[in-house]
């Protein structure tokens, strides 16, 4: 499993791993793709009382063939909900957060783009990003915002990527926005238009 290398930038989030917050009266877990494995580990460490207070939202993404969803459903009968996409999961998570109170804790695990979107949604409900329990699983692919047209590009694995909205060649910086849950992509050939270096597979 690829792990995120340390960053010299303080703004770069650090994902410290899932563990239960003692005392919380409700636990909400949002998992994507390989994040199912982290959720399974977390649930294996839970007693019946914690499980009775837990709701899990899962979207398999690229891990659908592994069938993690069935294992999660077996551990949390009736409270493991599978969604066909990140968007549909976030729609439901938004509803759950609207009903939540201060004794609810949010956990999220999956690729970084997914973690960023969950944390950004949590922030819109007044949750401090530091209090979301996070664990990175799966590829290092990044969610990138083109700083020129503001469009988002999902699942970026290369150091340079063409913007899927405006077509500009973007250099993917290590500069992360917690508000947007995305890395900044900046034009790479501003000085010499067309002089675009070869893209490297930087975020496999």
């Amino acid at each position, binding site marked *: 499993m690829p792990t995120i290398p340390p960053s010299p930038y303080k703004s770069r989030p650090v994902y410290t791993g899932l563990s239960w*917050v*003692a*005392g*919380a*009266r409700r636990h909400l877990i949002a998992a994507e793709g390989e994040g199912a494995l982290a959720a399974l580990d977390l649930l294996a460490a839970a007693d019946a009382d914690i499980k009775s207070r837990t709701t899990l939202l899962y979207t398999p993404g690229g891990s659908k063939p592994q069938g993690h969803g069935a294992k999660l459903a077996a551990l949390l009968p009736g409270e493991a909900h599978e969604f066909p996409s990140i968007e549909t999961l976030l729609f439901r998570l938004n509803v759950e*957060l609207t009903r*939540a*109170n*201060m*004794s*609810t*804790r949010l956990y999220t695990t999956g690729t970084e783009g997914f973690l960023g979107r969950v944390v950004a949604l949590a922030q819109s*409900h*007044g*949750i*401090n990003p*530091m*209090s979301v329990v996070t664990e990175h699983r799966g590829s290092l692919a990044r969610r990138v915002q083109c700083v020129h047209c503001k469009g988002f590009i999902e699942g970026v694995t290369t150091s340079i990527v063409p913007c899927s909205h405006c077509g500009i060649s973007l250099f993917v910086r290590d500069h992360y926005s917690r508000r947007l849950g995305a890395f900044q992509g900046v034009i790479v050939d501003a000085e010499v238009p067309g002089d675009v270096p070869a893209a490297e597979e930087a975020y496999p």
Partner: protein
Amino acid sequence: MIHAHDIRVRVTAIEDVAARTKRFRFEPVDGGSPPLFAGGAHITVALGDDDGAIRNPYTLSGSPQDRGGYEITVLRTTDSRGGSAFLHEQVRVGQELSISAPINLFPINFLARRHLLIAGGIGITPFLSMTEQLADLGQNFELHYAMTCSGAAPYEAQLRSRLGRRFHRYCSDRGERIDLETLLAGQPLGTHLYVCGPERLIDATIAMATSLGWPSENIHFERFAGPPPGDPFTVRLAKSGQTVTVGQHQTLLEALERAGVEPPSLCRGGACGQCELPVLSAEGELLHYDHFLSEEARAAGHSIMTCVSRLKGRELVLDF
């Protein structure tokens, strides 16, 4: 000890607001407006005869909108180092004092969806300015105030008329208690908690919030207990070779200031970390009274917060 950046003020009003509780109004001697402050801020005031032998922090209890001066509200305490006694008994209208610019270590978090304020007794003071500001800005908030109701409680009538249904009173002397579990378990997501009052109330509130799974990012508190007295000891400054004696009711910081040294300091309550000085050696036991150093840092004994902590022993050597 008067600092270079102090503001010289005149006492323009002294009023009784409750039993053993007085409000003091300070206006700059040179006219004009003192620096702006936000809800929860405090100042330090140089007190005592002989150019202010001690400096105490006091919360600003007036409105941030009041641009003419500052107000503080002071309870006369029996275990006082002399600060509150000096204010209550020696200070008169017309007298001049030196104060610091405002410092805010208990600010409102404006990312909050809702603010839950819990006060006990004289711990109401930061909430006077905070509720003014929150009400002006139309923020969602509630104040829960535990007090002794047999006498006049400070500011009860003012708060009740200003806050209406957002104000909740509990008479401690009639056995009424804030039901912390029910109150904290039911708060909507995005609520920030602020608590100020006796240690017992602060500790119980933090413990309850934590046991309900509240994130520490949403819990804010201000402890206003003064630095405890202790046996006199000697401090030696390694860089200048200067030796200073710290008296029983003096803090290490105040003793250094008296000797003409200006070590760093800010909150004078052991909270901000600004006054931390490196310890070279300690002949005796370091008594850490701050809320800043971690358990590991205390055990290591490599530094001391001069505003509240002291030595139980003979000599402390600081790398300063």
